[in-house]
C-alpha cells in the first residue's frame, strides 16, 4: 500500500480507495447517482475516466441542473458513447419527476431502448412520478430486448397504440403496473400476449382484453407448496389459443369460448370443475398434463368439434366429451401410475375412461416405474365382453414380470392394433419383453389361464419398423433389427391382427 504524498493530504492518510480494482470501484459507483459518479472524475487523474465505463446508467431529472434539452442531450451522449465503445450496460434507470420526458422527447426514449437492446441491457427501470403530468409511452421495442431480465415500470405508462403483440419474458412486473398498463385504451387492440417466467405477478385478470386471441402464461413449478402461485382469470370470447403452465386458472361459470381452438393446461392446480359448465364450440385440441386437481373432478367437456385430446398424469381421470359429430378424433393418454397402481380395479377404471371417450381413436401409454412387483392377477371379469379397440398401446416397465402383468391387464379391456412407440436405441428391454410374451403363443410354452384366452383371439403378429423417408411402416424380423441400429430407422411396433 503506498503512502499518499502531496500538500492536500495529511501525512498519515493512506489512499486505499484509489488502489481498489476498477471492477470494485464500478460496484461502489453503482450505488451513486449519475451526477455523483461523474463528479468522481475531478478527484484525481486516476479517477478521471473510471466512471465512464461503469455498467450502470442512472438518470434522474430531479437533481439535474440544466433544462429539458440538456437532460436529453446528456443521456443521449452517454448512451452513444457506451454504444460506440461497445461498453456493457447491465442496468439503465430513468426517473422522471419534473416532466423532462414529454411527448416531443418520446422518440428519444424509443431510440435509447433500441440502443440498450443492442448493448444487451439486463435491467430496465423507468419511473414516471410526475403528478397530473402527461402520460408518456413505453415503446413496445422494449419487449424486443432479448437480454432484458428485469423490467420495472412505475407510474403512468401507456404502451404504443399499435401494440398487437406483447411478450414479457423474465420480467419483473407488479400486478398494479400490469393492470394499469392493460387497462389503458391502446391495449384494447392487443391480440397476442405471452408472459413467460415473469416475477411479481400474483393475479392476472385479462377478462377485459376483448381482442385477445392468443394467451400464454408459463412459470417454473414452485419449489414449495406455500409459495404463492399466480392466479389467472380468462374469459374473452375472442380467445383462440390458451396455454397455461403452473398457475391457478379460473373460468367463469357457463362461459362461452366460442373461438377457442386450443386449450393447453400443464400443472394447473386449481379445481377445473367450472370447465364442465363452459361451452367450447370450436375447440379442436385439449391438452391436460399433470393437472392433479382432476383427481377429484368428474369432467364433462362440451366440445363437439374436438380433434385431439392429450393427457399425461399419474391417475386415471374421469372425463367425457359431449361430442356430437361422428368424425374421427384421437385421444393420447399417458398414464404413469405412481405406486405401480395396476390392478384389476385400475384397469376397470381405465376401461371406464375409454368407454366415456366413446368414438375416439386411442393411443394409450402405460409407464410403470415401480421397483416392486406385486404380481397382479388379471381376470377377464365377464363385463369386458366388448373390448375397446386401441390404435396403439405402449407399455414401459422396469421389471419384466410387471410388464407381462400390464400387458395382460391391457388385454383384459382392449384389443390394440399395435403395441409400440418404442425407440430402438433406448427401449430395447421393452421390445424384448413384448417379443418374448407374444412368442409364447407360437412356442406353446406354459402360460397362465388368462393369456391362453387372448392368445386364442390373436391371429397374427408382425414386427414393423418406421421408414421415415417413405412415411410408412415396413415389416421386418427380430434377426434383422440389428441392421437398423445405426440408421435413422428407430421406431418399432408390433402389429397385431385379432380374430
Amino acid at each position, binding site marked *: 500500500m503506498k503512502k499518499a504524498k*502531496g500538500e*492536500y493530504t495529511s501525512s498519515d492518510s493512506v489512499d*486505499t480507495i484509489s488502489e481498489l480494482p476498477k471492477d*470494485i470501484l464500478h460496484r461502489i459507483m453503482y450505488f451513486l447517482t449519475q451526477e455523483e459518479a461523474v463528479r468522481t*472524475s*475531478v478527484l484525481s*487523474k486516476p479517477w478521471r475516466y473510471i466512471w465512464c465505463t461503469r455498467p450502470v446508467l442512472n438518470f434522474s431529472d430531479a437533481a439535474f*441542473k440544466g433544462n429539458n434539452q440538456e437532460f436529453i442531450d446528456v443521456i443521449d451522449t452517454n448512451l452513444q458513447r457506451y454504444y460506440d465503445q461497445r461498453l456493457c450496460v447491465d442496468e439503465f434507470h430513468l426517473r422522471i419527476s419534473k416532466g423532462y420526458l414529454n411527448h416531443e422527447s418520446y422518440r428519444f426514449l424509443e431510440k435509447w431502448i433500441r440502443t440498450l437492446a443492442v448493448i444487451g441491457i439486463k435491467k430496465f427501470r423507468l419511473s414516471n412520478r410526475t403528478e397530473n403530468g402527461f402520460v408518456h409511452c413505453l415503446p413496445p421495442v422494449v419487449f424486443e430486448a432479448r437480454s432484458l431480465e428485469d423490467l420495472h415500470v412505475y407510474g403512468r405508462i401507456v404502451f404504443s397504440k399499435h401494440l398487437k403483440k406483447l411478450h414479457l419474458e423474465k420480467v419483473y412486473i407488479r400486478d398494479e403496473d400490469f393492470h394499469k398498463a392493460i387497462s389503458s385504451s391502446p391495449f384494447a387492440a392487443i391480440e397476442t400476449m405471452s408472459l413467460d417466467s415473469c416475477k411479481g405477478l400474483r393475479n392476472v385478470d385479462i377478462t377485459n382484453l376483448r381482442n385477445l386471441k392468443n394467451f400464454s402464461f408459463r412459470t417454473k413449478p414452485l419449489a414449495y407448496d406455500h409459495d404463492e402461485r399466480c392466479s389467472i382469470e380468462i374469459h374473452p370470447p375472442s380467445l383462440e389459443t390458451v396455454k397455461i403452465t403452473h398457475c391457478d386458472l379460473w373460468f367463469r361459470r357457463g362461459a362461452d369460448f366460442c373461438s377457442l381452438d386450443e386449450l393447453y393446461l400443464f400443472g394447473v392446480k386449481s379445481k377445473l370443475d367450472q370447465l364442465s359448465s363452459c361451452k367450447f364450440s370450436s375447440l379442436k385440441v385439449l391438452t391436460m398434463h399433470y393437472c392433479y386437481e382432476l383427481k377429484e373432478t368428474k369432467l364433462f367437456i362440451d366440445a363437439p368439434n374436438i380433434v385431439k385430446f392429450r393427457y399425461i398424469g399419474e391417475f386415471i381421470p374421469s372425463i367425457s366429451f359431449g361430442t356430437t359429430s361422428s368424425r374421427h378424433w384421437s385421444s393420447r393418454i399417458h398414464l404413469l401410475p405412481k405406486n405401480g397402481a395396476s390392478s384389476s380395479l385400475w384397469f376397470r377404471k381405465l376401461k371406464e375412461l375409454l368407454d366415456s371417450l366413446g368414438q375416439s381413436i386411442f393411443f394409450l401409454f402405460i409407464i410403470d416405474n415401480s421397483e416392486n412387483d406385486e404380481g397382479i392377477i388379471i381376470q377377464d371379469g365377464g363385463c369386458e365382453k366388448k373390448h375397446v379397440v386401441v390404435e396403439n398401446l405402449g407399455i414401459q416397465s422396469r421389471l419384466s414380470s410387471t410388464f407381462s402383468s400390464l400387458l395382460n391387464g391391457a388385454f383384459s379391456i382392449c384389443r390394440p392394433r399395435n403395441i409400440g412407440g418404442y425407440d430402438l436405441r433406448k427401449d430395447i428391454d421393452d421390445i424384448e419383453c413384448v417379443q418374448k410374451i407374444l412368442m409364447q403363443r407360437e412356442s406353446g410354452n406354459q402360460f397362465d389361464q388368462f393369456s391362453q384366452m387372448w392368445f386364442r383371439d390373436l391371429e397374427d403378429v408382425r414386427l414393423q419398423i418406421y421408414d421415415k423417408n417413405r412415411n410408412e411402416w415396413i415389416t421386418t424380423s427380430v434377426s434383422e433389427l440389428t441392421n437398423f441400429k445405426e440408421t435413422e430407422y428407430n421406431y418399432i411396433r408390433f402389429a397385431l391382427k385379432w380374430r
Partner: protein
Amino acid sequence: MAAETGTPTTLTLKSNDDELFSVAESAAILSVTIRNMVEDGCAGGVIPLDNVDGKTLASVITYMNGISAIPADEEKKKSYRDKFLSDKDFETLADMVLAANYLNMSCLMDAVSAKIAQVMEKKSVGWVRRKFGIENDYTPEEEAAVKEEHKWTFEGVETDDDN
C-alpha cells in the same frame, strides 16, 4: 475465532497469514468461490484463501455465520448487514470488499460497496479527497477543464463543508 461446530460438515479455511478457521459448510458456501471448491471435491482438507488475511477472514466468517442463521427474510438480512458494517472503518471496509470480491460473495460485496458509496454521497470533491486521502494531481487549469466538461453535475454542490 472459530465457528461453532456441531453441524454435520465443517470446512477449514486458511488465510494468507496461515491462520486456520473452521466454519460450517452451509455458511461457507455463501462464497461461490468456496462452493465451487466444495462441489469440485477440493474441500477435503484445508481450503487455502491466498488473497485474504486472518483479520479480514475472521470478520467475513462472522458475517457468513450471522447471515446464514437468518431465515429467508430480506428485511432481517438487510438490518443484520447494516449492523455488521456500522462500526467498520474504511480500511476494514476496503479489505472486506476485496475479500468479498475474491470469495465471490455478491451480498457482502454489494453491502460494503453501498456502505462506501454512502460515505461519498452528496459530498463535495474536496471532502471526499480528504476523507479518503486522495492526492489531487490535477493542476488548477486541468481541474477547471474537467469540471467544465460536466458542468451540469457541479453546479450548486461545490461547498466544501465537512458535514
